[in-house]
């Protein structure tokens, strides 16, 4: 058996307020670090070209596509996933509740990324108009809804608490 030269490096990320420290290969993508090391499977993978946005998380409160970020790049940073935006007691963030109230999801696969992108939008612009919402979600694909109900979900959240709070 030949041995491929692999080495690992320690990556420590504060995920949803909790420190996660693991030895990983340097090439490990952040999305795999979150799904397989931190075992937070809410963040999904939908493409390999950074187009679909299913893997969107917040890095230091800014939306980022975690399939295009190496885990080592997130070392020492704060990452927030869909599991981290509720109130922690099974309650939903305003954006999560907005998606439920306005039927902003069907199969749910793009939803975690959508919720994180919408959360980042509302944190930056608490009262976006429809055009601003659509433009802000340009990097997140949904195949089920046709987007109108997602726009409504963001509008619902904007009038019911905004982006919400997270660790």
């Amino acid at each position, binding site marked *: 058996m*030949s041995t*491929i030269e692999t080495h690992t490096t320690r990556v420590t990320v504060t995920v949803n307020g909790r420190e996660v420290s693991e030895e990983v290969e340097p090439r490990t993508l952040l999305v795999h670090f979150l799904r397989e090391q931190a075992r*937070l*499977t809410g963040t999904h993978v939908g493409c*390999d*070209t950074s187009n679909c946005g299913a893997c969107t998380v917040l890095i230091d409160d800014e939306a980022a596509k975690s399939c295009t970020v190496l885990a080592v790049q997130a070392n020492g940073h704060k990452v927030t996933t869909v599991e981290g935006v*509720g109130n922690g007691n099974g309650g939903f963030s305003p954006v999560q509740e907005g998606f439920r109230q306005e039927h902003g999801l069907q199969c*749910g696969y793009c939803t975690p990324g959508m919720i994180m992108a919408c959360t980042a939008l509302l944190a930056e612009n608490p009262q976006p108009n429809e055009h601003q919402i659509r433009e802000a979600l340009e990097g997140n*694909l949904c195949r089920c809804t046709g987007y109108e109900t997602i*726009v409504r979900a963001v509008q619902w959240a904007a009038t019911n608490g905004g982006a919400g709070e997270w660790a």
Partner: protein
Amino acid sequence: MSLIGAKVLRKEDPNLITGQGQYVDDLAPAGCSFMAVVRSTEPHARIVKVDTSAARSMDGVLAVWTAADIASLPARPASLPGMDMPLIAGDAARFVGDIVAVVVATDRYVAADAAEAVVVDYESLPAIASLGQALAPDAPMIHPVLQGNTVFFQDYTEDLTAEFDAAPRTATLSLVNNRCAPAPIEPNVVLADWGATGLTVWAAFQAPHHLRNTIAAFFGISQDTTRVIAPDVGGGFGAKINFASEIFLAAALSRAVGRPVKYTQTRSECMVAMFHGRAQEHKVDVAFDDSGKILALKVQVTQDQGAYPDATGMGLPVLTTAMAAGCYKIPKVAVSWRNVVTNTTPVAAYRGAGRPEASYMIERIIDLVADETGVDPIDVRKTNFIPADGFPYQTHSPLAVYDSGNFAGALDELLRHVDYPALKAEQAARLADPTAKLLGIGFSSWLEIAGFGPPGSLEAFGHLASWESAQVRVQPDGSAIIYTGASPHGQGTVTTFAQIAADQLGIDFDRISVRHGDTAVIPQGIGTMGSRAVAVGGEGVKTASTRVFERAKKIAAHLLEATEDDIVVENEEFHVRGTPSKSVPWSQVAWKSFQPLELPAGMEPGSLDATVFQQVPNFSFPSGAYCCVVEIDRETGEVEIRNMYLVDDCGTVINPMLVEGQVHGGVAQGIAQALYEHMQYDESGVPRTATLMDYLVPAAPDLPGYVSGRTVTLNPSNTLGAKGVGESGSVGAPPAVINAVVDALSHLGVKHIDMPATPQKIWSILRGSK
């Protein structure tokens, strides 16, 4: 208060909005290994040699298989004899994406490395990239058994020469129904665990029992030890009823390596490996008179099946030709179709599966007749509609007996939302102003065949049967669990079925759970496709719930010492009609239903449990009228949809919020086909749109908002009256959009534009006109 028709929030959502959904790729059993696939980069080639030595020698690699390693296994199920799709291509690769080797490793990244290290030596063969190439006289052959590339040919069902000769006017139109990639955001995913006592397969799939039965037959194992679970599924759109080769390979590899094997398609793989949809060419002849009355129609459909004909894919032109006359009473209709192989990804069901092609064709023809005669498109439609009292209506096809409809009523309802005269005036004004964008107004009065189906209908596509199962089980505390063979992947079936059951049982919606997607839990099942979940599966839930309720009433009557006919239920209390004080709660009836000493004579314990295999006597025929208003930039050719008006008639609405969601999603995919999406191959058969960078799945800025209306004609084939709505939007939207685009350009003599109506195509037309 009835919950039928109520906007109820979804039971599915709390998990899905918090990241607690469970999709196949989220599962990670102990010892889980990962499969990666080596795919042909050649459209058509002899496979000279597959060198797996480097891959095999990598640390962590458990297996590397080529065709030789699976010689004892059959070809992919749902293949056609002599044109079988091998699980792993052996002698030849026949499309870019054909599987050449598979690798299993202990780690996702190592599996990818090892797949990369497999070296395949190809000898290129002449390839067929299009229907034109396939049907050329000296075309290369893909499957020797065919003696050509035509798999099946049905000549015109009738000779209409006399009708066309006698007609005052005739016209011809050639149409391309562009090949689309279903592109659910979750690609194909499978996890197979072949353990000592049986095989469990978790798959992103729309019909788990269908898959279970097929896997068991494939491996020659017993169905009782074969379990298929479709947990949360991230969209299907028809593509996840196809038997992806990777499912069978993962199972075989799990048996070989003695570990669970997981496989997740990358998006680039998904674009070429997940079966495509549409891919038809039409030649249409229409005979009509000066008033726009259509006298005869001839439709010839050529279906691109891709490299390996799939059983479902073969049926697409059958559905297209069956629905060729749309909403119209056309005295003579003759249809012909041809299934053809090419060196491209196989083609099968994609949302609408054969019916969007039909509605697009006939609605383009209606506008062509309007254009030729100078009669307004609205009037051409009204002149030719089957009248509201004309049902049931036997079409030219034995398959399609329209159940009910009110096509003029839907169009009138649409025109209540659309200020057509004002739009026509605006269009004329813009035309006169060279700086203004062009305006186009397009209509479609569409009709589809759904609610699959009557006995024999799904059997023709290889399914066990055409019923759907429903089991209703009242628990000892008076809550209820519904088990359904329908297998949702976003439709909200858990919610709608609980609404249906709540109404029949008198049990609170919040105390009803709906289970699906596990062959070890659900009695039997067919699946979710063909807009059948509510029309067949929902009706089954109603039937089973009614049976359970009748038995509960017997127990309540016994406990209240009253007669059964006097028992009513309100707020989960059974009481004697007119005497609310004499009551017994549902919870007590449920509890006692399990206690022999409490039951009326002759009643068995556990009787509040009913299983139904719901049959329906006919398909359903959802219909509607859409209007699209487009603006076209005269400089760039860009089309922007300014308004999209949608009137749907899906019969009874169970949950208006969910119906709206289904319509929006279908319309979005329809607009996408009309304006953006086209799975393209270059002349040598290499895909040009194999990533989401190149294939334009629309994002939020690319799609409009929608104005919705509704008419209701009940489905006479079930007691709910529901027809189904999952595919409606994808059937109705494309013709409305293209009719609008053509309308905007008709002053230039434009009669037709093939989908997708890209800025490039329109810019060329505009430029040519200058």
